[in-house]
């Protein structure tokens, strides 16, 4: 059962900076297991992030890692991927990083369907800066900039990704760890832009302010309030009210961006037969 995390973790970097109970560490372990399962070599994978607690993850893992500016991981990753289309490029981001300041890059990467596995760690808050509301903070909940209860409606990240054109969209949670391993594996295997939202707990800036006694309570909330999409789809609306679906939520076949681009390159570079 035991897994050798050490082979992937940069020497001397643990303990990581995340708070006690921050579930990012759970996801981190899942990511390592998934990439290991797929036998992707360390030199052949890059992990790119923006700014935020979530975005600190790449610093710990012994791949090619790039910690960019807030919200901009996807453009940097696009430059990398288009330059090295045969390498694996992943992005890890927070709800704020990916969908607030980074929203435009997010939808455009989805539109292009470029082969970047994008993992959004949604903890419903801007953790790094101390708990301001994000585009996913539930309405009515408290945040340091919503002292009277949040009035801002939310993004549904999978809906947004799908509406923008992503070809693979999924959702997992930090509670459902074995399922999460499988989802990350599938997201990576998918060729094209895959978006995996992972529900996380930030006890420090969100949980405590919103009456979750501990990180464990937040994990149990995930357990009690989610349903696999297969079950979710079968139930009548009364039974699914207030719950969120998990699993592979959307999937389609669509040409991948680098493929299309380099096919064009091939076409125009060929000596033009049958032409003057």
């Amino acid at each position, binding site marked *: 059962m035991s897994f050798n995390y050490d082979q992937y973790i940069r020497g001397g*970097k643990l303990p990581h900076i995340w708070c006690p109970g921050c579930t990012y560490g759970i996801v981190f372990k899942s990511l390592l297991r998934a990439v290991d399962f797929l036998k992707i070599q360390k030199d052949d994978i890059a992990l790119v992030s923006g700014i935020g607690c979530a975005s600190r993850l790449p*610093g710990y893992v012994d791949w090619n890692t790039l910690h960019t500016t807030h919200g901009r991981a996807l453009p940097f990753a696009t*430059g990398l991927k288009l330059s090295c289309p045969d390498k694996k490029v992943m992005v890890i981001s927070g709800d704020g990083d990916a969908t607030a300041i980074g929203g435009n890059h997010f939808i455009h990467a989805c539109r292009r369907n470029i082969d970047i596995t994008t993992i959004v760690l949604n903890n419903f808050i801007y953790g790094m800066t101390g708990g301001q509301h994000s585009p996913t903070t539930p309405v009515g909940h408290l945040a340091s900039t919503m002292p009277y209860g949040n009035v801002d409606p939310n993004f549904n990240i999978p809906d947004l990704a799908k509406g923008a054109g992503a070809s693979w969209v999924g959702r997992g949670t930090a509670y459902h760890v074995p399922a999460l391993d499988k989802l990350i594996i599938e997201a990576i295997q998918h060729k094209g832009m895959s978006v995996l939202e992972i529900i996380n707990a930030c006890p420090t800036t969100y949980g405590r302010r919103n009456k979750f006694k501990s990180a464990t309570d937040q994990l149990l909330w995930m357990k009690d309030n989610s349903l696999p999409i297969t079950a979710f789809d079968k139930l009548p609306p009364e039974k699914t009210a207030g719950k969120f679906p998990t699993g592979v939520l959307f999937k389609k076949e669509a040409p991948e961006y680098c493929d299309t*681009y380099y096919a064009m390159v091939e076409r125009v570079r060929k000596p033009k037969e049958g032409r003057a």
Partner: protein
Amino acid sequence: MGTLKLLQGNEACAEGALYAGCTFFAGYPITPSTEVAEYLSRRLPLIGGAFIQMEDEIAAMGAVIGASLAGKKSLTATSGPGFSLKQENMGFGMLCEVPCVIVDVMRGGPSTGVPTGPSQSDIMQCKWGTHGDHPVICLTPGYVQEIFSETVRAFNLSERYRTPVIVAFDEIIGHMREKIEIPDKGVLEVENRKRPTCSPAEYKPFDETKGDVPPVADFFSGYRQHITGLNHHSDGFPVNAHPRIHTDEQRLIRKVEGNRKDIIRYETFMLEDAEVAIFAYGVSGRSGKNAVEQARAAGIKAGLFRPLTIWPFPEDEVAALASRVRAIVVPELSLGQIIFEVERCAKGKCRVEGIYRVDGDPITPEQIFDKIKEVK
């Protein structure tokens, strides 16, 4: 013998990039720089390079850095509003020492301003546009042929010093067509970044013990590394409140300021015995040359200092000039920007007089000549 072509300044810039080995362009269209992108969108696919139009200038700058980290010589081109948007990621490139070239074709501003009008009013922004301390190299060609050659030089400097390099010129030269000669391959030097020779285990991306410009490893080349826009140690990992920050940022500045001899280039015209000097770059430098001719014809000893490198600023040269001329005249398509630097370096040793113009027309030789007569 090279190839002769009649090209727009913007097209010459694209040709310069290709000559220098650029294989990646990311941009977002904006007048008056768009022809750089359009030209490369035709040419890059033909050499197997990548051309991508991003969703905005912020993304374009990010993609250029990403591509450079993968080892590609990368370019982006823009104008005022887009240049403002690129500033944050340009700062990332400077701190993380990512070679790349940014072209700013200057138009009337501020804000949307006069998109099709010329200006030279981003020149201080080239130096100070992003937050924090940062090293800046900025080249200012004045002729279409020079746009070509200075773009080649920009790539070389960016590879040599492992830093973004800006090429800034005004809309007039960007859009005007002149004959240029594109030298055959090998005629102009083309330089590549120094790559590590040590083992991957020993490699540190910001190892100052390797000199002010540490070798740079490409992503996916086996040298796994961490690159972050946080201040960092030599191994690339974040550092917080530490003397290292001071010494490392000093190194970044020193890379540029300490290599002024190598980086600074300029043309002088009849400056040896001049009593009045004109300090002008870009299209204003062209007018300056005509003004010198007019002045000399009228028996006035005028001369021209035309910087091709504006940042780092040719401080010593201007200081020396100030000690031997009566006045320095600074014509600019702005309300006065680079004159601040000239004034600073002149240290009160001579008069410094500006000529400003932002109505959409270039400063004429006559305007400069009149001022020469006034200050002589």
